[in-house]
């Protein structure tokens, strides 16, 4: 399953980020997922909920997902349109000389975190 691998890589990247920012614990993670990135968000959350319990850094942290609309640019009429209902064909002029502007990406937007320099929470 594709989503399993993605979650594994999200966690790996979070460990790198934690080192860089001196993070002790991550409280939540927000992902930006493009409409046409090919990721099934329900499966992503299921995989996350399973894996977060196996990892000290992200244990219990909820995963929030923000969807990014897919937008296509038409080189014939220089218009832009919503990708999902129209696909490769421009609804304004009928051309197929079009390319995706945004909506296939997948990124970690932000995290909420406690730093090592912060005072311990239950002290």
């Amino acid at each position, binding site marked *: 399953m*594709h989503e399993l*691998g993605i979650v594994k*890589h999200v966690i790996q990247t979070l460990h*790198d*980020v934690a080192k860089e920012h001196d993070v002790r614990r991550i409280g939540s993670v927000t992902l930006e997922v493009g409409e046409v990135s090919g990721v099934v968000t329900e499966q992503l959350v299921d995989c996350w909920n399973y894996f977060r319990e196996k990892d000290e850094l992200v244990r219990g942290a909820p995963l929030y997902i923000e969807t990014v609309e897919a937008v296509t640019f038409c080189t014939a009429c220089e218009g832009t349109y919503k990708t999902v209902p129209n696909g490769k064909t421009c609804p304004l002029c009928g051309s197929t000389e079009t390319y995706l502007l945004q909506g296939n990406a997948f990124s*970690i937007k932000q995290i909420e975190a406690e*730093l090592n320099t*912060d005072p311990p929470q239950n002290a």
Partner: protein
Amino acid sequence: MIRTIELKETVTASNDRDAAELRRELTARGLFLVNLTSAPGSGKTTLISRTVSDLIGRVRIGVMEADIASDVDAKKIAALGAASIQLHTDGMCHMDAGMTRAGLAGMPTGDLDVVFLENVGNLICPAEFDTGAHVNVMILSVPEGDDKPLKYPLMFQKSDALVVTKTDAAPYFDFDFAAVTRRARALNPGIAVFPVSAKTGEGMRAWEDWLLAERKRGRHA
């Protein structure tokens, strides 16, 4: 205290860094790594086997066979006398740079010039995860049809070469070579396209020459 940290990191960022590092190390050691991807059963193992046999005595080739669980492919390669290893991905649908590095550690790389990595049969996830290979080769077999580029654009964009295999079966399928080349080049103008039959050997020479030329080019890069 909880604070918010803005990241905007791509999910594959840590893998991309690992892959770039692995590629640098391999280049320094003079080892050329070739990543092969296709749908299940397109002919990866057969193409590798034929290439290994054809190039025996010219370059020393090792093969890493990634599979979710089985090890039949590595046995086929070992029967040719080439160094081979079976990598189990334990359910993961692709190889990443860390797994590739671990696999290479189990190979006699000091005695090899080229290593083929047969990636997991799947056209979606391997496209997103850089293995650290110097070249990425995609295999499409004639029975799969000439419209694959329309269905898996990312894989075509990320591949340096497209090998169209099982050309001996072309008379039985309605496969348009000009159309597949046009569709692949629309996605990736620089992609090299090689129609081959690993069964009859037709077209193998052009593919092998390209491979050897890429290896030379990489060594001096």
